[in-house]
């Protein structure tokens, strides 16, 4: 066991940071969520760099083709958080029955129902639940690195909308679901790392999930443009969806808590993006009308009934929503996209640092990490740690997933810089 894991230091480190206490060192997350992960090609490259046991990397999140960060790599990366994921993926099949797959020349492992066909143009199509009789729900352009949802909105009648059509994906958990959650949580809980769980069902209008790539024949509003329009022109309809979704989601969380208690430390609540590179997708007043009541309802229940911290993801220039997030009860904000307007890390730390945990912000994944030099990566990482680490409230991660094509030298430079920040270089 590495120094990092000894005597549960990793876990305590994270708990201190998310409680706004100074940890012994900056805690690190790579791979604990689908927004703090690493592309499978980079996971493979890192395994080779660190001379870990040679074996194909598993794709645990097929939509973004994220590689599973297993414990040996997690330790090599110096990461302190382990993810707990639902076995069902975004395409509806489970992470089981692994089979080999060749991905742009790289041999990897994918779930058994990761079923694909190739178009005449060379694009890869993937099928919901692995069902070839259904229309494909994802497309990966030839030579590219991940899937995009195929919009399937065959049953949309703007004059006859039924909110139940947009609730098909939000269902009460079955006993089998609960058994899996309990089993996987217990397996992840070894007392060494903090646990961050993504149970699903509580994301409000997450645009990645609106097209429901896991359903064979979706009804309702499933087109991204139509959804955005609906947040302006069909607010009653959106309210109906969110209201019922939260009702189901909280009932599920209650049943999960009854099974696992405080066996996890942090809950991934929602991945809806409110920011863009220079602005946002809506005004604060729209957010407070359409989303805030439901976030507050969920956060209130979680804080009253569990010891879980609440993790919210929102890309982009999201600072204008931070006060509302805090008021709703959000504890942790991710990815802290410092390259977006109004997201200067020093400003964020000074204004929100005692009330929000910044989970991310470590290095820019749009420019520096993929295209900079290792020296530039090091400089940015050190600077970000200097700004964000004092007083706790910071868990290091690159800003969002490490993308395909990111040089291993840059990823290693990032990891080494975090160590250097603690005098361990």
């Amino acid at each position, binding site marked *: 066991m590495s120094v990092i894991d000894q005597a549960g230091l990793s876990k305590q480190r994270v708990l201190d940071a998310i409680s706004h206490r100074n940890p012994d060192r900056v805690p690190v997350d790579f791979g604990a969520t689908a*927004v703090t992960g690493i592309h499978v090609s980079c996971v493979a490259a890192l395994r080779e760099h660190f001379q870990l046991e040679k074996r194909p990397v598993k794709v645990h999140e097929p939509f*973004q083709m994220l590689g599973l960060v297993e414990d040996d790599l997690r330790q090599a990366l110096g990461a302190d958080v382990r993810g707990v994921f639902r076995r069902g993926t975004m395409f509806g099949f489970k992470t089981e029955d692994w089979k080999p797959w060749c991905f742009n020349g790289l041999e990897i492992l994918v779930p058994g129902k990761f079923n694909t066909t190739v178009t005449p143009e060379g*694009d890869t199509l993937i099928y919901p639940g692995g069902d070839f009789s259904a229309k494909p729900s994802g*497309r990966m*352009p030839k*030579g*590219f*690195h*991940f899937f*995009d949802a195929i919009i399937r909105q065959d049953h949309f009648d703007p004059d006859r909308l039924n909110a139940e059509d947009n609730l098909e994906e939000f269902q009460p958990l079955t006993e089998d679901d609960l058994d899996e959650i309990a089993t996987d949580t217990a397996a992840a809980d070894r007392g060494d790392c903090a646990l961050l769980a993504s149970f699903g069902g509580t994301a409000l209008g997450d*645009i*990645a999930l609106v097209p429901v790539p896991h359903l064979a024949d979706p009804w309702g509003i499933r087109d*991204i*443009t139509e959804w*955005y*329009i609906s*947040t*302006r*022109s069909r607010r009653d309809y959106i309210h109906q969806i969110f209201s019922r979704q939260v009702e189901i989601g909280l009932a599920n969380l209650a049943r999960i808590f009854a099974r696992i208690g405080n066996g996890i430390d942090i809950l991934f609540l929602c*991945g809806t*993006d409110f*920011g*863009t*590179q*220079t*602005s*946002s*997708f*809506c*005004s604060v007043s*729209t957010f407070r009308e359409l989303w805030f009541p439901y976030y507050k309802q969920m956060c209130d229940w979680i804080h009253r009934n569990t010891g879980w911290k609440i993790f919210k993801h929102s*890309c*982009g*220039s999201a600072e204008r929503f931070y006060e509302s997030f805090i008021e709703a009860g959000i504890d942790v904000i991710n990815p802290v*996209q410092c*390259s*977006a307007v109004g997201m200067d890390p020093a400003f964020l730390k000074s204004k929100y640092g005692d009330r929000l945990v910044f989970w991310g912000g470590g290095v820019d*994944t*749009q*420019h520096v990490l*993929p*295209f900079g030099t290792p020296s530039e990566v090091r400089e940015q990482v050190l600077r970000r740690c200097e700004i964000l680490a004092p007083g706790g409230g910071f868990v290091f991660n690159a800003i*969002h*997933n490490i*993308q*395909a*094509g990111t040089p291993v030298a840059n990823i290693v430079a990032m990891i080494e810089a975090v160590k250097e920040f603690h005098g361990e270089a």
Partner: protein
Amino acid sequence: MADLKKLYDAVLNGDAKTAVAVTQSAIAESMNPATLISEAMIPAMAEVGRLYECDEYFVPELLLSARAMKGALELLRPLLAETGVQPTGRVIIGTVKGDLHDIGKNLVSSMLEGGGFEVTDLGTDVTPEKFVAAVQQKHPQIVCLSALLTVTMPAMKTTIAALENAGLQASEGARRRCTGNFPVCPADRCRRIRRERQYRRNPGTKDGGGNRPLDVRLNSRRNQCSFTQRQQGEASSISRFSGTVPRRA
């Protein structure tokens, strides 16, 4: 008599049904279709752009207004062709190879159409060869390249190289505007592509906050368009091409 103010308001407020209804009335009254565009739709979209820049309108409002305008334009397009009205200019637009995102591209396309441009939308995942073929066929004045993702931005460079290799050079002194998530020095960015340096400024990553609509302000008196941009996700490189390809009469 068709109420141009009502059409203006309908486009501004994203009321597609009213926009279509007013346009139908105007057509029934044999109103000059160019009048509807120049006196109602273009001003409305300009105001939409201004409100977007002021942080009063956001992507949903832009989408609604674009939809209202497109509804009206679809009725007017055949009439414009009959009257022989020439477009302000011709535009080719598409999302580059490897990228399937289109919301920002669609918004730009709608705004250009609303400004009187003839827009050929090549869709998404467009190969450089397809851009070349479209330019050779349509002889546009402007080519718009859109990309959302960090990993697809380099496709802009290869597309521009393909256009240049096909002899489709940008005219001397042509203004190029790269609308990227970093609004600083967009011209710089274009020059870097032009010089085949590594493209260092990149749009949003996947899940990086979505799309990047452009605010298009049209100055019909000078017959130019200047683009003010705000946003991430989709970067559009806009180049003017002329010269070796004969202009269509």
